[in-house]
């Protein structure tokens, strides 16, 4: 078989498509990506979806699949990392990471963020805001979005004066300026774990390995993801 099916978190769409193209050129093996919400993909894999590789946006759903023996436990590894940043519409002023700074920036608007209960970016964001002592203040001022990209779009257009998004998203969107980076220690390390599914086809391990290759890591970096030499 010279075709792989990769189920991957939607937030990785452009990086993985670039990597997939590079992999195809290198190996001749075609890679099909199904991008969707991590939770949907995880459940599909649990239900027996014909995926060879799963790339998750967080570790909860990877753990979920590991517990259900839907992925090969020993194949799980983080392939990229990410950071969190506050962005505002292009031209926004840098921001102090305290209640005063946030409230100045928000004015009467809301803080766009990926949903803090359902979307990984939102969960990380909530953790970070909590540890920074900002949660109590912003909790009532949130605009939780269906995914990070909608939050980003909101800030791009100025519908919200501020959005909390992945560094990767911010780096490729010219319509926003990063107004503050959240310190890495304010939240759990953001990792994208990948794994082979239980019935992964031959060659899937090659792709999984390729994701950690220098070429792939360079693409991740270009897309604003953190490289992970340190993290594993």
């Amino acid at each position, binding site marked *: 078989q010279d075709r792989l099916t990769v189920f991957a978190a939607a937030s990785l769409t452009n990086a993985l498509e670039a990597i997939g193209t590079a992999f195809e050129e290198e190996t001749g093996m075609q890679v099909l990506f199904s991008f969707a919400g991590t939770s949907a993909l*995880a459940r599909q894999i649990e239900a027996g979806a014909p995926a060879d590789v799963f790339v998750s946006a967080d570790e909860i759903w990877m753990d979920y699949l590991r517990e259900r023996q839907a992925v090969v436990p020993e194949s799980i590894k983080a392939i990229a990392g990410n950071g969190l940043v506050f962005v505002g519409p292009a031209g926004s002023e840098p921001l102090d990471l305290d209640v005063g700074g946030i409230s100045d920036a928000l004015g009467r608007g809301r803080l766009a963020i990926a949903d803090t*209960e*359902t979307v990984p970016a939102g969960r990380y964001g909530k953790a970070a805001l909590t540890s920074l002592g900002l949660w109590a203040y912003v909790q009532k001022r949130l605009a939780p979005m*269906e995914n990070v990209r*909608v939050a980003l779009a909101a800030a791009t257009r100025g*519908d919200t004066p501020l959005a909390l998004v992945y560094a990767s998203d911010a780096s490729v969107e010219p319509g926003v300026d990063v107004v503050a980076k959240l310190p890495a220690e304010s939240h759990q390390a953001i990792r994208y774990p990948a794994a082979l599914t239980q019935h992964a086809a031959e060659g899937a391990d090659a792709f999984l390995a390729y994701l950690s290759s220098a070429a792939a890591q360079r693409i991740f970096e270009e897309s604003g993801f953190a490289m992970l030499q340190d993290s594993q």
Partner: protein
Amino acid sequence: MDQFHLQPHEWEALALTLRVGAATLAVAIPLAIAVAYILARFRFPGHGTLNAVVHMPLVLPPVVTGYLLLLAFGPKGPVGVFLQNTFGISFAFNWTGAALAAGIMAFPLIVRPIRLAFEAVDPKLEEAAASLGARKLVTFVVISLPLALPGILSGAILGFAKAMGEFGATITFVSNIPGETRTLALALYTATQTPEGDPIAFRLTIIAAIVAFGALFASEIMARRLKRRLGASDA
């Protein structure tokens, strides 16, 4: 039956959902009646375009519709800015926005049966009304509209069900704010997004099903009354 004792945030979502559903119907139905009548009874250059615009929210993925709503009605969107400045109305991130999203998504579903019903009204009865001196508007109100009621009821039911279930456009347009825009559907979605959410999702599904069941039941009874009212045959 403790599991059917609703928790406060479930109450909140349920109340919000009903409010959104009711608002959707209240605003969308009169508009849908107007549009349906126009589509059914008049031929004019913009007919096809109007028809297409009405159906568009059905054709596009809800997320796209929500996004377009955001572009237009968001705090920085042209319509949003206009409404804010002239009437002080804002659909951004509040329940009225949820109702707007639900209304737009439900609109084609409401318009279609109503249009069908108007098309089925015998124009001869409208002629008879005219010959008795009734103006167009009066004829519409006392003849065409009552005779189209079964279609309006059908449209209302589809619309209410859709408003209850609407998710993609709502979450994209007004986000998923508990107590403000988190309807049952959004709460349900939220629950499915975490592995531990399944029992919650199950409860919410049951709640949604009960509400829908109630609404459908009520509509069937109304439909039967209506049928008698419209004189299919006497009591």
